[in-house]
């Protein structure tokens, strides 16, 4: 009975449409409009970048209309606030560099050693305890580190090194280093964990010790990732503000002596904005020129780090 099996379709009386029609239309409207709204959310990130570049650039350019760019990069004195005003970026740059180098001397060896321990040596249980602790250390606000530097590290250093001033680059640099340890260790550990297990197994099968595996197999394989972590730490230390404002002083000086009081680019920006600088003055413009320098340097470092990390990922 094939005729009965096929339901007859009456062309004059089509089956009733579903009653949910209205709701479906609304849904399809949502389906159409949401991607647009979501795209706008994503676009804010680009607008933020444009905003940063635009504000920095426009004020920096008007600053350089008053202070010649050539003075900015060649003069060796930064004396913007009183007396005879000179705007040579080098003292601020050298202060920043001094802090950053000390910080990296602390953070890179300790962070890297911790990463090797966590990735190659540590039993699972130890890892489970230590990693959250390092995360907490990374989450401590920088102002707390500033307090730590000023009230504990500096007095301790003063008892070891007589004649050390209260505000000095050494104490601030060490504490900035401590702050970046978790960053170096977790990024390096990620790079090391990504090294294929088979490479380690091969070395162990040849009778290598854990140290030999870590140093001669894992570290070379994860090298660009580790370098990326160090570069990021460097960039983070350059941008660090509160620790150096609190503990490193406010005397821009072209020096490589960590026992002296210095001023970093970030600390200068804070110093100016704490005072009441009128909008449009040269001092006001100078924070944008310094901010631009800071932005360009950290940007270049971050892009380098990303490039390094990406190169590493492509190898396996």
């Amino acid at each position, binding site marked *: 009975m094939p005729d009965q099996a096929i339901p007859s379709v009456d062309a004059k009386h089509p089956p009733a449409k579903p009653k949910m029609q209205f709701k479906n239309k609304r849904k399809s409207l949502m389906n159409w409009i949401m991607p647009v709204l979501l795209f706008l959310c994503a676009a804010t990130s680009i607008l933020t970048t444009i905003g940063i570049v635009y504000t920095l650039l426009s004020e920096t350019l008007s600053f350089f209309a008053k202070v010649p760019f050539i003075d900015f990069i060649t003069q060796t004195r930064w004396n913007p606030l009183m007396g005879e005003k000179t705007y040579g970026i080098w003292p601020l740059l050298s202060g920043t560099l001094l802090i950053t180098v000390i910080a990296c001397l602390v953070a890179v060896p300790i962070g890297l050693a911790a990463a090797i321990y966590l990735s190659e040596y540590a039993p699972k249980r130890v890892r489970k305890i230590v990693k959250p602790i390092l995360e907490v250390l990374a989450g401590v606000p920088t102002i707390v580190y500033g*307090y730590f530097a000023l009230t504990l590290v500096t007095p301790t250093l003063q008892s070891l090194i007589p004649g050390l001033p209260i505000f000095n680059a050494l104490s601030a640099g060490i504490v900035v280093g*401590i702050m970046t340890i978790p960053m170096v260790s977790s990024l390096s550990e990620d790079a090391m964990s990504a090294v294929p297990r088979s490479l380690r197994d091969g070395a162990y099968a040849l009778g290598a010790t854990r140290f030999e595996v870590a140093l001669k197999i894992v570290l070379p394989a994860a090298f660009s990732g580790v370098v990326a972590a160090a570069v990021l730490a460097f960039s983070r230390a350059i*941008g660090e503000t509160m620790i150096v404002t609190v503990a490193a002083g406010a005397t821009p000086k072209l020096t490589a002596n960590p026992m002296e009081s210095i001023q970093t680019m970030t600390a200068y920006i804070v110093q100016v904005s704490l005072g009441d600088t009128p909008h449009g003055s040269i001092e006001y413009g100078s924070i944008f020129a310094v901010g631009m320098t800071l932005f360009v340097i950290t940007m270049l470092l971050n892009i380098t780090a990303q490039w390094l990390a990406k190169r590493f990922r492509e190898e396996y």
Partner: protein
Amino acid sequence: MKDLIQEDRGRVLMRRRIDFALNLLFLAATSVGVLVLVVLIVDIVMDGLNNLTPELFNNYPSRKAAQAGMKSAIVGTIYMLLIMAPISFVFGVGAAIYLEEYASKNRFTRFIQLNISTLAGVPSIVYGILGLTLFVRLMALERSLIAGALTMTLLVLPIIIVASQEAIKAVPRSRRDASFALGANKWQTVSRAVMPSALPGILTGVILAMSRAIGETAPLVMIGALTYIAFLPDSLKSSFTVMPIQIFNWISRPQEEFHMLAAAGIIVLLAMLLLMNFSAILLRNKFQNKL
């Protein structure tokens, strides 16, 4: 022959010793972080515990250390959190959904992605400069609560976007397929199949980003969050201060009593952060059990 075996044994022993010594060295390096955290907390608690009095919570800032409190700073931090949390949640999660679910894998999407990770590495003080120009001057919001909250929103957005993307990525493909198979359209799938299971992960990321925001000092110093605020903010445009700025102000004073006060303020700030991080961890654990 025997000599050779003897020499070999010596070498193996030596290598084992080196391995052991470095094991200890690496362990020591790892414990530096743990040790510092313990020293830091003990130092701050010892300095600040005596000042952890009701006055700290009930009084406004004062020139006399004995009467100074941080009521306006605590309230300011909470207000700022309440304003920035919804704004940054909507924009951050929206951007993450777009990038993970809608964006086609073309050059433009890669550019947005690169841009977000670059923004995450911009020093916080640069956001302060942006906020000062954009919100305080250009939009004429003055040195107000809303200007501060918007600046901090821009600062935490990249963190929230990246965390939300991770959470959305972790939702198994099968959930989407099942939803599509039932006849749902794209938005229905995203809102009813993907989001519910990504939400705990997203919330964890948002809470962590918020805890980063309430500890930030530099951008708000730029914005001009004043420290001498002897009133509670009563509108979005009222001037304000927050805990880290109050602490910074106390640290910057030469007198010892103010340093002790700063330590007490830090205890309050850290307690608040700990509470937030703890709730984030609880959320994360719940999330992990579910999957």
